[in-house]
């Protein structure tokens, strides 16, 4: 086994474009769950509408990419309002059920033959992000020890990590503002916040919209990165990745999503590379795990990670157990 290969693979994975994109979406989810206590299990739905908003605007309507991104973000606002109106007055788990169902149903809708003239159906939409790559200042790939990235990936990474930093700063400032303090109060005790005259419903809605927009931005970057908006990229499992990242890093911590994303993608890349080598070199017989089944094991691992984290360390790496009171009212 080439342990050095596996290790450098994992290190690349830890800071690569995927880690950055998931960190960005996790910042939004952290705003939902960590700061407001909203159980959004459909973050991938926001990513989907964002990505398709951009891709459809460019490919179908011939608009420039930046307009498309705005369209995508607007779609996320609309989605947040639609999901929020019926559920935000109810107990937290209704939002969870509605969001997870909505995300999956949206995926069916976008890939259906009915929507195909617009969304490309099962083929998706590709090659719509030329505008973005035309701006790429990097001309050749850069290699620094194990960190070797193509110019293209480097550009996606810089922009996305830049956005992660920017929006983390924004969330940091927001949480020090009166607005942020009300959000935390809503999370801690909704009734108390209400009795102090705060419109809890409106605050929850604002949080859902803002976090959803961040999710949509991450969805756009995911589509841009692969030059492809395809319904099957936005599977429900993506949401669970994000939850694992937020909880691993520590919910309601500014650095939580970033630390979570880096460690999560390190582990995922490590596991993938390890299993792949072990199966192709015959350390694990094909009767137990065929090489084609390795990618499924990744999800099994994420599920296990979620269970163990929640059972033994719900506050994650950075979190504060006192601050995170996990109970439904």
């Amino acid at each position, binding site marked *: 086994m080439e342990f050095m290969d596996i290790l450098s693979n994992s290190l690349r994975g830890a800071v690569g474009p995927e880690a950055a994109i998931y960190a960005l979406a996790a910042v939004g989810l952290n705003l939902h769950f960590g700061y407001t206590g909203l159980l959004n299990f459909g973050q991938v739905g926001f990513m989907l509408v964002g990505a*398709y908003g951009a891709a459809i605007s460019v*490919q*179908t*309507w011939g608009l420039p990419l930046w307009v498309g991104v705005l369209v995508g973000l607007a*779609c996320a606002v*609309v989605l947040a*309002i*639609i999901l929020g*109106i*019926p559920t935000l007055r*109810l*107990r937290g*788990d*209704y939002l*969870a*059920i*509605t969001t*997870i*169902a909505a995300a*999956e149903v949206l995926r*069916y809708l*976008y*890939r*259906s*033959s*009915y*929507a*195909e*003239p*617009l*969304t490309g*159906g*099962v*083929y*998706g*939409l*590709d*090659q719509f992000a030329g505008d973005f790559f035309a701006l790429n200042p990097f001309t050749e790939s850069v290699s620094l020890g194990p960190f070797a990235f193509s110019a293209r990936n480097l550009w996606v990474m810089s922009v996305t990590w830049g956005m992660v930093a920017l929006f983390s700063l924004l969330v940091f400032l927001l949480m020090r503002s009166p607005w942020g303090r009300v959000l935390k109060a809503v999370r801690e005790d909704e009734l108390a916040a209400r009795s102090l005259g705060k419109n809890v419903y409106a605050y929850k809605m604002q949080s859902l919209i803002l976090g959803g927009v961040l999710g949509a931005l991450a969805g756009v970057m995911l589509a841009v990165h692969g030059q492809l908006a*395809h319904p*099957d*990229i936005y599977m429900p499992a993506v949401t*669970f990745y994000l*939850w694992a990242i937020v*909880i691993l890093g520590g919910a309601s911590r500014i650095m939580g999503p970033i630390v979570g994303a880096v460690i999560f993608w390190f582990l995922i890349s490590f596991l993938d590379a390890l299993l792949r080598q072990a199966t192709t070199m015959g350390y694990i017989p094909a009767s137990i*795990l065929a090489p084609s089944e390795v*990618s*499924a*094991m990744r*999800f*099994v691992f*994420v*599920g*296990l*990670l*979620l269970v163990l984290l*929640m*059972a033994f360390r719900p506050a994650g790496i950075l979190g504060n157990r006192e601050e995170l009171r*996990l*109970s*439904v009212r």
Partner: protein
Amino acid sequence: MTGNEGVLRGRVAAVLSVLFLLLLTPVAAHAVSDFRGTGPAPMGTSGGDEQVLFGSITDPDGEGLADIGLTLEQDGAELGTTTTNSDGEWEIPVPEPGTYDVVLDLETLPADLQPQQETGERREGVLVRPGRLQTRVPFPLISTDERQEPPPGAEPTEEPEEAPTTDDAPAPEEEGAIATEQPRGASFGARFAQLTVEGVKLGAIIAITAVGLSLVFGTTRLINFAHGEFVTIGAVTAFFLSTSPGNLPLILAAALAMVVVALLAGALEKTVWLPMRRRGTGLIQLFIISIGLSLLLRYLMLVLFGSRRGSYSEYNVQAALEIGIIRITPRDLIVTVLAFAIMVAIGLMLTKTRIGKAMRAVSDNKDLAEASGINVSRVILVVWILGGALAGLGGVFYGLTSAVYWDMGFYLLLLMFAGVILGGIGSAYGAMVGSLIIGLVSQWSTLWFAPSLQNLWALLVLILVLLLRPQGIFGRAERAG
């Protein structure tokens, strides 16, 4: 809950419907756009995006036949060939959605077998819809000395076929049933009646799976996301038991599958949920654990079962009974009747037996039930075991009427949620009634809309219920607020 909430809700509902239309606008706008995706089909993220025709070729006893040749043709041009594997299964990828012909190579058939119908070696006009990855093409075989003669005076095969079932789950069992499109000729009334039958069947299956979900919520306040995986595990266990090497009869396999899922659910309660509750773990934490568990079990099923769509070898090919204007196979009829019998049995259990009354007491008020001498932990354990067994059976039923696949439970879970919330979460009767309505709504929607959008209508019902009566039909108002 304040007095003007109702007025507010009405206003909110109006806003919501406008917003929903807005979100759909991009989709609706396709009428004025002539764009078509022309790029190459993208490679799937998990390699499972290729559209394929598939099936399995078995002798009349259900034994798979190896090395049977098949050819894929379109407009007379040959596009590809394949042969069956040792289990008789075959698969041919198709380049794009469209209509194809599949031809069975008679030379490769054992000498004592022949297609059930005279020209049964050619399946013409197999429709591959965009968005459907796998389309099943059946080739029923019989032994050479018993070819069915068409009854005198009757057109042998070209009957209007049954209404489309779910898009993901074609119902290819009847003779010649390949295209699942409803023929345009059938009258609205006939289609409505047929879809009502399909809806009742689907609803009844969802109902018996959803009862466990609702009862578990009622007694523990936990929304168990892994409930869908109980369904899958039941179906997959029965599948493995009823195929080689066990080759158990399906009825026995289904009973064993129920036991397996019941044990699994009981074991999870004993090892995970009970200790967690004792530690005073928060409900959100438990909820996220159930989601992790769901992900873990679902993808384990993918590793174990693969991404194929299986169907049970028994009761697979049946001629439909015609009752008036509706058609139903004996298998589907029995599944539906059994599901209803089970629902009645659950109702009787909840009202007449000691344990059933205890379940309702724990649902109503756990502390009061405990104080009056009910062993709450035992009641909860029984609820898990019962719910698990019912979910396992529901899985077998769904596998029988459509197909067995690795994420069937997750697909059904979304429908179960809609049904359970519509009926009033926590109430067993509510789960049954709600599920039946969801089954009907999702089938009736195919009268006007694409079958792949069935789930969308279930979701819309869910959102409307949350807006107008969040406690559901049978729920009590205090639970939801």
